[in-house]
């Protein structure tokens, strides 16, 4: 009985301090990521016909070229910046959370085994914006530039 009464406040204390710690960690994490996104725009953009909100998993499937169609059945066209460049690397690591070398390998396996296609490589962010605007069902990303007002920004959930 006595032991039980002694233990209880200790456990309460533990769970209290644990939740405090977690709050602190999540605060730090959130501020770290919001700091990052303040430095680089890092936005996923899409043609006006594409979806507005997609999940992180769906985005990964689109960029690993496994998902070919939107929910309405129309085809997806995927644009990327130079796959060997720093901006693609940032997108791959920070938005997709996939190592760029694995993304490249996934494309190569699809292309050279006949089971899929590679994304379309564009030369610059300017070209990315104009190709996404003019290609129905397309999706792309920009890292350094601001999203123009007439281009759809995709929210990742």
């Amino acid at each position: 009985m006595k032991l039980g009464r002694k233990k209880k406040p200790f456990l309460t204390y533990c769970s209290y301090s644990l939740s405090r710690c977690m709050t602190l960690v999540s605060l730090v994490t959130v501020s770290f990521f919001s700091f990052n996104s303040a430095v680089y725009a890092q936005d996923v953009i899409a043609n006006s016909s594409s979806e507005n909100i997609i999940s992180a998993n769906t985005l990964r499937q689109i960029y690993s070229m496994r998902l070919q169609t939107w929910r309405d059945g129309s085809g997806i066209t995927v644009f990327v910046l130079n796959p060997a460049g720093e901006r693609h690397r940032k997108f791959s690591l920070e938005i997709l959370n996939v190592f760029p070398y694995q993304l490249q390998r996934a494309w190569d396996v699809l292309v050279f085994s006949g089971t899929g296609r590679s994304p379309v490589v564009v030369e610059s962010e300017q070209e990315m914006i104009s190709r996404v605007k003019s290609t129905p069902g397309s999706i792309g990303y920009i890292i350094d530039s601001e999203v123009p007002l007439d281009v759809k920004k995709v929210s990742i959930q």
Partner: protein
Amino acid sequence: MLKKLVFNSKGRNILMLLCLLMIFSMNFAFAATYKNAQLHGFVTQAYSKTNANNFFGNSTGKGSFDYSEIGVNASVKASAKLRFAAQLLSRRAGKIDEGDVKLDFALIDYRIVDKSSFGLGLQAGRVKNPFGFYNETRDVAFTRESIILPQSIYFERTRNVSISSDGLHLYGHKQTSIGRLNAQLVTALPRVNDDNTEYALLNGSRPGSFRAKPSYIGRVRLESNDARLSAALSYVNLNMAYEPTTAEAAALNVSNKTDIQFDLRILSINYNLMKWSFTSEYAQRRLNFTGMGNYISAPVNNKVGESFYLQSVYRLNHQWNFLARYDVLYSDINDRNGELFAQALKASDAKNYSRFSKDFTVGVQFNISQRWMVRVEAHEVDGTAWLPTQDNPDPEKIQRYWRMLNASVSYRF
């Protein structure tokens, strides 16, 4: 060396072929995607030097340039769900492959269901055989970590039977809370109509011919959502018959009802970090001959073979990769050192070391650009189980311990 390459006629041919291909590919490189069509390709030229035993041509002595891989493919989208794709492949690998252009795959692909939670698709035509981590793209340097794939599982001898087959390929995936579950099933006729199959299975070019029978290849693969961890189970069951000529049947006691079955199971695991990748595969196989008379001696028939390798890659940066691998093949799991085999075939001077191979490999890769890559690797091998017979016709010259140095240049578009 370079002088020799440029001035002897064989070397000049190789160089000219490469130059032509580069020019050809350059033209397409900047227009690889045109409307609904995509065009891609790859080229690898390798050099091999061994201190004993031949691998990829006459590699002893001054070494050999008889290893190249050239592929071109097109994929045309007819609609969001319907696609056509085909690939031509020309490969030179010593006496195993002599550069003839072959149809690697040619298929029609239809996505029946295409959602992020669940997907299902069907391919018909000549399809690639999905097993292990590397089989479908074993000829594409950019999808491997080394010039030569771990030979214990992806050995040269039987490659033509195992790369692609004619039939149906059903594939699908299901998104689960722990990751993505992929399943593939191929039911098809294996490609058995060439000399290589005879070399691989009957140890030489033979008067009769093989006939393919319905075969099955399946793979289930689980991949974590961030693609860091991946594990797969593969099952291969290839079936064929051998049709001997009348004279052959009489002389070698070959039955008119032969049956050849090849079974292979592979467990594959891969873990990736930013700088490191670890890959391991473990396989067991069985090759069973029925009615093949004097072609197959009892000590080699219907044995369970075992293979495994451990491989690690260190990525110093996006340009430099380093590889280390230990790769082991046993032809008979109950006779790993081949002593029983040597004893049973004492009369024909069979060597125990032809029943295993242990290969320790180190390699370095330099990515010059997105499209160009250079590799150098060194092998230290004990045993000759995966040594191609075609390149080593004289058993007297085969040695148990041997070394190999390979270098390669690869290009893709």
